[in-house]
């Protein structure tokens, strides 16, 4: 089946898959966003317990999606893996630290003799939800703004900035995206709590947080978007030669109408989810905004990699820039991996059923008092 596909088709297919994983990951950062709202939404231990247990039952999905995204990038676009992870060392290490400390925090927070105390684990969760998510946004920002690196004839990376990736934090557009992703995570976190916790107090406080964070999100997202539409981009021709093209990403939107539709639909859904939650009593805004997030991020990744665009540009040596064509695995590997990708719908299906089973009954104060396994 996949054997008869062209190499380019497989490269594009795998870019679509990693884009879906990235989009799902950003949606699932509602866990991280929720973690930064624990203090704002709770006034006592019981309330905090509901919040922690609410995100605590989902954190592994976010974590696993990140790990799978990494694996898929390694398998499908190994040159990105070696260039970006090896080059932008400190940014990736910082992100990893933020996720390492998350993984233990839920389980250890309330356990007797946890050595560091509950507050420390709550701080870990806050760092994961704030710095971790912000840095992910910054790292994705470099897909559009580029980094200073060069590849030699053996494709080994030479990173030309001594700060090894931290320089990305000093680029305003990267920071705008980082803050947009951070505030979006808090928006999604608020929506998730509204949906997942059956408690009036939490509901009203979440609604307030939703309003504040929506404003911040819109400011930074629009800043990033306007800059993106106005900026020059990194295009490549049929021979793989990379050049600077004015308004490349704006052109991409116009030249790929389907992507434009997905992007607009995504943005509208995000706004609709927020709208029905703020202006009505509907508690299902997370599903609209969540789907919208997936579509929007998916479209942004297609903008970054499709239509002859370099998805990981080098500002120091244009010809070292990575494209989905020059950074992918061999045709054989992409073909073999494509068969594995057929399992993805099955995976999504069982996640859906398991999630539904666990969320059948919303979290409430009563459950917190008699639950045997709680965080």
């Amino acid at each position: 089946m996949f054997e008869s596909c062209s190499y380019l088709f497989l490269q594009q297919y795998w870019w679509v898959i990693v884009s879906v994983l990235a989009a799902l990951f950003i949606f699932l950062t509602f866990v991280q966003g929720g973690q930064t709202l624990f203090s704002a939404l709770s006034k006592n231990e019981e309330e905090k317990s509901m919040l922690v247990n609410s995100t605590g039952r989902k954190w592994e999905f976010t974590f696993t999606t990140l790990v799978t995204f990494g694996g898929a990038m390694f398998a499908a676009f190994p040159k990105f893996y070696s260039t970006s992870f090896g080059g932008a060392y400190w940014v990736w290490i910082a992100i990893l630290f933020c996720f390492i400390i998350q993984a233990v925090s839920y389980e250890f927070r309330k356990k007797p003799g946890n050595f560091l105390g509950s507050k420390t684990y709550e701080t870990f969760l806050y760092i994961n939800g704030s710095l971790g998510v912000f840095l992910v946004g910054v790292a994705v920002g470099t897909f559009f703004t580029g980094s200073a690196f060069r590849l030699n004839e053996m494709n080994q990376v030479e990173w030309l900035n001594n700060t090894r990736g931290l320089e990305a934090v000093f680029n305003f557009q990267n920071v705008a995206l980082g803050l947009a992703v951070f505030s979006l995570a808090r928006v999604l976190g608020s929506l998730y709590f509204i949906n997942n916790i059956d408690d009036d107090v939490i509901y009203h406080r979440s609604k307030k947080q939703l309003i504040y964070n929506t404003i911040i999100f819109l400011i930074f997202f629009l800043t990033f978007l306007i800059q993106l539409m106005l900026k020059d981009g990194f295009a490549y021709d049929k021979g793989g030669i990379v050049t600077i093209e004015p308004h490349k990403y704006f052109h991409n939107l116009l030249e790929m109408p389907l992507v434009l539709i997905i992007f607009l639909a995504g943005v509208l859904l995000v706004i609709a989810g927020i709208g029905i939650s703020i202006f009505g009593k509907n508690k299902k805004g997370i599903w609209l905004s969540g789907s919208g997030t997936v579509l929007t991020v998916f479209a942004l990744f297609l903008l970054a990699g499709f239509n002859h665009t370099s998805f990981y540009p080098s500002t120091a040596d244009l010809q070292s820039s990575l494209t989905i064509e020059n950074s992918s695995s061999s045709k054989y590997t992409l073909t073999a991996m494509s068969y594995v990708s057929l399992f993805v719908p099955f995976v999504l299906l069982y996640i859906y059923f398991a999630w539904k089973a666990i969320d059948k009954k919303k979290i409430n104060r009563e459950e917190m008092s008699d639950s045997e396994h709680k965080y």
Partner: protein
Amino acid sequence: MIADIDLALVDWSRAQFALTAIYHWFFVPLTLGLSFMIAIMETIYVQTGKEEWKRITKFWMKLFGVNFAIGVSTGIILEFEFGTNWSNYSWFVGDIFGAPLAIEGILAFFLESTFIAVMFFGWKKVSKKFHLTSTWLVAFGSNLSALWILVANSWMQYPVGMQFNPETARSEMLNFWEVLLSPVAVNKFLHTITSSYVVAALFIICVSSWYLLKKRELMLAKKSIILASVFGLLSALFVAFTGDGSAYMVAQKQPAKLAAMEGLYQGKEGAGLIVFGALKSGANKNQEDNFHFKMEVPKMLSLLGYRKTDAYVPGIKDLTDGNVERNIMSAGEKMEKGRLAISSLSSFKKFKKSKEEIKADSALQVFRANSQYMGYGYLNDPDSIIPNVPITFYSFHIMVGLGALFILLFMVTLYLSIKDKLDGKKFLLKLLMLFLPLGFIASESGWIVAEVGRQPWAIQDLLPVAVATTHIDATAVMTTFILFAVLFTVLLIAEIKIMLNQIKIGPKGGENV
């Protein structure tokens, strides 16, 4: 060739990977083994409907949860470390190595993370059968994830199903099934997971022995010991069987590792297998006797390694200096060929760029003729193909010795627990508790043999570790090494303290089950 490589960087990169892998491996064996034993316990509960088995299941599940969290925490760095610290490696083999990691994520991690939520939080929310299925899926998911990472590791020890592509300067996959089903991969997977089951069984026996000593949770302790002893005994026997298969594969594919494992400096026919011994501090390949003392089983190494009692087992001297009589090429000769491969590859790329096709073809032919030795071309010294002998030798013998001891231990605990004779045997119960650290030592030793034993290679014969690292300042890696060391140590202390507390609290706040 390695002169321009910062050896401090290589050492720190290796140290960091070793540190993070060793820490991660403290938790993985328990996850792999406990998940199955918990699934068996819950199956008994569902089959018999006896509430005591539900309480037993829930108790071990609680300990499993504590361990699982830190296992996940220490695991994420390993995947990304291939990119951050071994970026040249990532490009060189990403076409092959990346695939198992991606499959691990798609097929195994999601299975594990989805159903673990049901396992912990679904007791009152889903049916008994759905819950039991979830518990089994967690066990299969975690073991399936081990399969893929072990396939990837095996490929580094025995690279098959691929070809180096001079155009892209990387190895590319030719046959997925050869990678997945290579005999090294099959053996490594079975050996590693079953050895993990042994550690998990020792954990259950250790905790249960403590309860018996304290005369608490007697029913839980006794039932758990019987189950763990059966599970542990079957696993330990299988470990011995697959250990033989693994050693056989090492003999065939990594002779330098085998020589280091046995401290065999000079090759011989009908070589004996050392049961125990002590290497002299100045042991070297030009010395006849390199042991202070040793006890060996005659001809056993030849038999195990080559299935013939009089087979010739090459020693370190044969592998570095060569042995014409035995048709063994010297490392020096391989280095010459390797250098020819590297220089012809460089010429090929240069001629390709200048579009001199005939010259490019001729350079390519030279490259193809020598490409299997390419990795040797990066080495400076023939002796560098030999791993650290004392570390490999002692780790191997500690692993094997303890493995044999565990078989005996499980037999004893099974017999005594069936006869209900463990009560009141204070000395024995204290002794049983000591076996848990020994289990960890054996398990970590196994990895030390596998990884130290294959030095200097990141990928056997193709890519030395010195070339595989990311080009970055050594102080950056030293800094992250320290950060990881501090963070993981703190988390380990927290985990142990929590675990001990949970054991002390017991299944129902201390009341008897």
